[in-house]
């Protein structure tokens, strides 16, 4: 019998058992889409965070409140936040060539008309451009006067601009941030490349403005930019000396290299966790496929008995079941990939996601293998029975 006939038989059998076919596919779909989605979230978050640090430049030193090292690298115990006074203190005591930049980063919701966007505020003083990348495509950055006046001005990253002002020059336009009106004074070129990708999805404003907007007198961190990259380690020690009298051990100072190391460690844990969840989803999907296949074995065994009684050869039976299993697995896998991918795309509104090829391939082939194995193996056994055994099977 020709392959085409086997194909017709398989499709007819799938069509005759729509519920079973749908449930089997559901197992594959859940497994595949869950893995793709979770791995995409893990990878996306990791790349965004490490990218944002790497994008800053190599001669930066970060001072955070709280003792990271005593917290075991995982949990911070922050008893006292930094304020602008602390930044001013560092500025006075360090050399005038080294720039001191107070930083606030906070999530915020932007609105223009009926368009809404969740993004991140990156606030600094007039030297912010030295810390955050600043390649102006139009308008200008905020100045010292904007900082001292807490002016409600904002500079848009390229993604934000493309989302909120797709076809117009945003400079001079009004924008709503967390319910307050701001004026756009400039916008940036896309930074390009995955490492700095997240900087495009930020808005930049004076640190004083951000404090008022968020209703706080604290700042998130202080960044010091060394004039000479060779001085980084020396500078790190001096910052510690200056801050110790006031903060004791309740602060941490890292070079960029150290920061990346800690973050990579934290994010590695996150990725392992997500991969674990993904693995469980895959297993659950696989068990779902297995169950529905095994549950239908007795019915299918009778079917095989009937087919053999009227003249089906072993090859006919096997090709039917292999084609059935392959069609279900490939359809389910395809739908799962589509669902996982579009789910990942939809989630970027809230969480950074990045679909990885190995996750797609792993999920697809694992689910397909489970589907094909549990579709074909019972059929293989039944196809070797005498027809009468298969017909009698309960």
């Amino acid at each position, binding site marked *: 019998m020709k392959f085409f006939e086997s194909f017709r038989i398989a499709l007819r059998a799938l069509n005759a058992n729509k519920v079973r076919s749908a449930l089997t596919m559901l197992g594959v779909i859940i497994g595949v889409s869950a893995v793709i989605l979770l791995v995409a979230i893990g990878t996306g978050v990791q790349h965004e965070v490490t990218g944002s640090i790497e994008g800053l430049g190599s001669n930066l030193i970060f001072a955070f409140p709280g003792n990271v090292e005593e917290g075991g690298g995982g949990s911070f115990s922050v008893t006292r936040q930094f304020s602008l006074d602390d930044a001013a203190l560092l500025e006075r005591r360090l050399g005038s060539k080294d720039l001191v930049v107070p930083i606030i980063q906070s999530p915020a919701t932007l609105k223009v008309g009926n368009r809404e966007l969740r993004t991140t505020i990156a606030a600094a003083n007039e030297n912010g451009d030295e810390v955050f990348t600043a390649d102006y495509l139009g308008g200008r950055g905020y100045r010292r006067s904007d900082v001292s006046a807490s002016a409600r001005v904002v500079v848009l990253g390229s993604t934000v601009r493309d989302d909120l002002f797709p076809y117009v020059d945003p400079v001079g336009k009004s924008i709503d941030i967390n319910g307050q009106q701001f004026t756009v004074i400039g916008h940036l070129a896309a930074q390009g490349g995955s490492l700095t990708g997240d900087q495009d999805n930020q808005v930049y404003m004076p640190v004083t403005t951000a404090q008022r907007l968020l209703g706080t007198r604290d700042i998130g961190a202080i960044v010091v930019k060394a004039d000479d990259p060779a001085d980084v380690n020396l500078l790190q020690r001096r910052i510690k000396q200056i801050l110790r009298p006031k903060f004791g051990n309740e602060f941490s100072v890292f070079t960029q290299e150290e920061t990346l190391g800690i973050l990579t460690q934290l994010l590695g844990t996150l990725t392992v966790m997500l991969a674990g969840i993904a693995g469980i989803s895959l297993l659950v999907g696989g068990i779902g496929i297995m169950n529905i296949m095994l549950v239908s074995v007795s019915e299918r065994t009778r079917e095989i008995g009937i087919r053999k009684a009227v003249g089906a050869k072993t*090859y006919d039976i096997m090709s039917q079941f292999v084609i059935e299993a392959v069609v279900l697995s490939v359809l389910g896998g395809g739908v799962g990939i589509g669902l996982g991918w579009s789910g990942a795309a939809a989630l970027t509104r809230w969480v950074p996601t990045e679909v990885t090829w190995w996750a797609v391939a792993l999920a697809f082939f694992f689910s397909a293998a489970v589907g094909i194995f549990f579709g074909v193996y019972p059929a293989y056994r039944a196809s070797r029975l005498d027809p009468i055994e298969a017909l009698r099977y309960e």
Partner: protein
Amino acid sequence: MEESAATQARVECVESRVVLEARQVSKCYELDEIEVHALREVDLEVCEGQMLAVMGPSGSGKSTLMHMIGLLDRPTTGNVVVEGVDVSRMSPNELAAVRNKRIGFVFQSFNLLPRTSAQANVELPLIYAGVSLLKRASMARASLERVGLGDRLGHYSSQLSGGQQQRVAIARALVTAPSIVLADEPTGNLDSRSGIEVMSILQDLNRQGITIVIVTHDDGVARHAERVVHMLDGRIVHDELVENRTLAEDRMRELDAEEEAAQ
């Protein structure tokens, strides 16, 4: 009239060739470590055009014998010969081909594919025989018309009564124009009217020259055949030609009259 039909059958049996033959067929299997002899050296010849009933109580081996001569199962010892060809040493795939071409089955529980139309069920043996799509459809239609279901081609098994399902099964058994149709308790799951209808169709087909073997425990069913083979404990104990053979048409008329009288 009945007498002469029985005599004629004997003459026919002598003159016509043997379609199917069991030679010294035995079947043993183990059930809970006890050896069961389902068949003990059974010899049986089925002649062309004959309607034969194999009768016996449950456990007598009659179904096992049908599975042997239907090539659904293999004898432990002995040979089965179909149309003069010994099939005992054939591979499973060769047996499938012989079943497909030479043997039609009618089972007590119908054994139709679920959620599949009557026509698709009847086409099934033709698919495995390699018949082309168009030819298949017309052959299946013709076969269903033969059992009076020409208007039920697209119905699923679940939309058909038991009697209709059994007729679909008969159409499926007929569609490859087999040498022999084997029916295992064909009326076992049917009410009496449907049972009579099925027997009527089988007798009709037999009149058209198709060899039929019916396995049953019911003497009333067996008496529709020309010849009855009685089995007990895995052996054939009696082989007789039927006198006063029951004609399903007569019984149908009786049933109609009874029902009319009851009303």
